[in-house]
């Protein structure tokens, strides 16, 4: 994995930075099933925050709550010091949240370039009328945003596939394009749902590098779900551990690793 030890990245980012998003006592139920049970944690500006836990622990549900796709039955979400009212996902996107999906959710019929350009839709304000005539603001916006998108394409090293339809790409590149689309929105918080699932070692290393670079260069706050413990412990500043919808641990990678409850959730407990 990444050669540099985790300690070098995990400066005290988590402890000193201001809170960007605060989740308070979130409970989410589907009928009788409690997916998330009274979970609270915060996300600080500029950190990489990982959510881990065994399958079915409620990690993806948590991400869906943050991105507005599920509305929790109880609990409050505070964003930039303000309580967030119940919102539709597209309204949440306008606040500056972007995400990628566990199973890739790209627009298969469109080219890589168009997929990434779609990520900038909240930056483009020209009216239907001026777009119809391709005149004035519409064309200017298109060119300006194209320039921004090209920066992201360079950053993620996908120049050679920009005109390729997404449906033709291999899995690893699709994941990268999805990250590019999320980055195009210039998000305050970037939510990554298993960005390394199904990748080989080389692709994982690339993806790790991109995630760290995004965090470093753009200062983007990142919330990350990942199963690869090596990756999680190396990348993240702080980790939330979930099991059966509950939070069983929260802290720096080292603290979490030493937490007996976490160990028992992952390795099982010895029965006497």
């Amino acid at each position, binding site marked *: 994995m990444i050669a540099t030890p985790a300690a070098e990245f995990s400066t005290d980012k988590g402890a000193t930075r201001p809170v960007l998003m605060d989740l308070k006592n979130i409970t989410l139920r589907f009928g009788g099933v409690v997916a998330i049970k009274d979970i609270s944690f915060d996300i600080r500006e500029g950190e990489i925050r990982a959510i881990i836990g065994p399958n079915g622990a409620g990690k993806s549900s948590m991400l869906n709550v943050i*991105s*507005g*796709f599920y509305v929790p039955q109880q609990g409050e979400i505070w964003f930039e010091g303000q309580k967030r009212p119940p919102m*539709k*996902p*597209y309204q949440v*996107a*306008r606040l500056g949240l*972007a*995400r990628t*999906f566990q199973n890739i*959710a*790209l*627009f*298969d*019929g*469109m080219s890589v370039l*168009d997929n990434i*350009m*779609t*990520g900038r*839709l*909240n930056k*483009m304000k*020209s009216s*239907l009328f001026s*777009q*119809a*005539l*391709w005149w004035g603001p*519409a*064309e200017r*916006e*298109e*060119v300006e945003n*194209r*320039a921004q998108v*090209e920066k992201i394409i360079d950053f993620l090293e996908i120049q050679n596939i920009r005109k390729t339809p997404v449906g033709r790409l291999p899995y690893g590149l699709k994941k990268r394009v999805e990250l590019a*689309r*999320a980055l195009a*929105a210039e998000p305050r918080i970037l939510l990554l749902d298993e960005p390394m699932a199904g990748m080989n070692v080389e692709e994982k290393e690339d993806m790790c590098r991109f995630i760290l670079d995004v965090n470093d260069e753009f200062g983007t706050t990142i919330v990350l779900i990942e199963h690869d413990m090596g990756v999680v412990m190396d990348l993240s500043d702080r980790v939330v551990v979930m099991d059966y919808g509950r939070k069983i641990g929260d802290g720096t990678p080292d603290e979490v690793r030493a937490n007996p409850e976490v160990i028992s959730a992952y390795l099982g407990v010895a029965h006497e």
Partner: protein
Amino acid sequence: MIYREAGDFKTSYRDDGQTFPIRLDRWGYYALLGVAFLVVPFVIDSYWANAVLVPFLIYAIAAIGLNILTGYAGQVSLGTGGFMAVGAYSVYKLMTAFPGVPIFVHILLAGAITAVVGMLFGLPSLRIKGFYLAVATLAAQFFLVWLFNKVPWFYNYSASGQINAPERTVFGWAVTGPATSAPAKYLTCLVFAVVLAWIARNLTRGMVGRKWMAIRDMDIAAEIIGVNPLTAKLSAFAVSSFFVGIAGALLFSVYLGAAEASEAFGINKSFLVLFMIIIGGLGSIFGSFAGAAFLVLLPVLLKNLLVVRLGWPTDLAAHLELMIVGGLIIFFLIVEPHGLARLWRLTKEKLRLWPFPH
């Protein structure tokens, strides 16, 4: 050898985003437009206008409209005939109520009225998808035709229940009514077809088009990255209906001259236009033209071949024509489900590499 991108470097994002990136393509289309505007009007006779070119142009507009909704935004519609009827009856009511206003304004207004009606019938798309939406739009088809037959106000209480286009002129040339010349009909439809195709191209290459395609390809992901499904779907319905309404208005006022709702705008029309975009290619402006050309020209060709050349009886030829068209549609769907537009693109890609394909 000439059909190459090599050496044709783009140095700005503006150039890179243009409609025809390859130089030869661009010249080809300019030449085609030049011939269509400057040569054809002087040589066209009423047979070519009435049997081939005018219906081709009108159906191409309708097909672009439906393609925006179904091919780009992914919302299946079987209400095209009904929306064409809205365009036709709107233009009729406008022409008779405000005789002094230029006909082009009336046709555009008819499109706008159809856009509003289309948005109204597009509301169910916010809740239902796919086949279920198709059935909901089918309801629009039957309701609208029924409405125009049942309410005499729409056909100005005429005894026959028909609507007849009064004569209107543009620069002294009659473009509607019985006295209209073939070039006038052709040019009117050509102007609308070219301008509307250009608008459709602009919309689909810009952010509106991307939102539509995002909704088509994966609506949940689209919503999460910030597409408002309400505005995206309704704008698709509005723009699509605007096109279809103009096609209906032209079909009635310029081409047919007289129409009756259930006959001219029945469910057959909806299917005809749907076949056009399926055969032509979903999500392609070129495909809309190709599909319209295919389904307008094929019957004419077959008729010429069977009746004129082979001397078959007309009724036999008419039945056989239906069977052949039907067979060809099935053949096409099996061989090239992505339509003529895909064939065209593959040809162009091959041509780009010819004669050294590797």
